[in-house]
């Protein structure tokens, strides 16, 4: 299944979930609607496409645009040595997207990190808690609105 018709194949398989596809600098990119994320992902994971590995999952905070957060997933298929980037844009301040914990096991920690850093809520995640920061920390540091050097010390510091 060559590179071009791979994309057509996927688009035929998921006509309404996929908004658009692109090819930037040799990487295939799919933009998927928020509701259609889980069916697309489980479809891509097994059978014809077998993207068996969730390489990476991260989020980008576009403060200016109206759908502020954009989730970026990188999938990798071992058999075909191909990488695929999937983007999902989440509207509004409190971004919500459904979780992929059922499909890949590393999604658990990756989503906890995105929740900790951006405050994106994942529906269906078993225990969505902070992973990098500590309990008493208010706010989500990687958001563009969080000031770069605002420290929240955990114990009283002598200055």
């Amino acid at each position, binding site marked *: 299944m060559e590179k071009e018709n791979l994309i057509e194949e996927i688009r035929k398989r998921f006509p309404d979930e996929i908004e658009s596809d692109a090819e930037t600098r040799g990487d295939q990119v799919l933009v998927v609607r928020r509701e259609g994320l889980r069916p697309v992902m489980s479809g891509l994971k097994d059978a014809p496409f077998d993207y068996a590995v969730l390489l990476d999952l991260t989020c980008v905070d576009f403060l200016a645009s109206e759908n502020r957060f954009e989730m970026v997933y990188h999938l990798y298929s071992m058999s075909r040595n191909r990488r695929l980037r999937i983007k999902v844009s989440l509207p509004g301040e409190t971004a919500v997207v459904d979780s992929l914990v059922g499909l890949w096991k590393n999604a658990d920690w990756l989503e906890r990190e995105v929740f900790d850093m951006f405050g994106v809520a994942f529906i269906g995640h078993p225990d969505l808690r902070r992973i990098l*920061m*500590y309990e008493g920390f208010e706010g989500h*540091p990687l958001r563009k609105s*969080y*000031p*770069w*050097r*605002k*420290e*929240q*010390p*955990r*114990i009283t*510091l*002598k*200055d």
Partner: protein
Amino acid sequence: MSGFDFLTTRFDMAVGWARKFSLFHYPFITACCGMEYMSAACAHFDIDRFGAGLTRFSPRQADLLLVVGTVSHKLAPALRTVYEQMMEPKWVIAFGACAVSGGIYQNYAAVQGIDKIIPVDVYIPGCPPRPEMVLDGLLKLQEKIQNQGQDWRWKKKT
């Protein structure tokens, strides 16, 4: 200086000499400086030549707290606990720019220098400091131990 004072200063120097050359250090290692600590502690640059080779992994048996690497705000209470659990007399070395002053990480996550948490005796700059700088820092601490008035039980608090 009466006879008794002469005796105590001689005794002070003896105790200082003994403490200087038998430093058991607690390696509180967190980040990249740990790699340079390994080189300093191992055969090539060997801190054991100065009596500080034995690493004790429990603060109850350590004299010297070697804070190596970045201390983040999440780790600050752990560092505070380790320092308080150490027995007197105790000394602290800040190893590397991050421990000295937060180094290149001036942001929401890193503590800007461990002297905001615990009193520090010797600062070793460098990111990471070369093993020779580590040995030099150790010698400076030993000099400090030798010259400072030793604290022991029956000493009259002057």
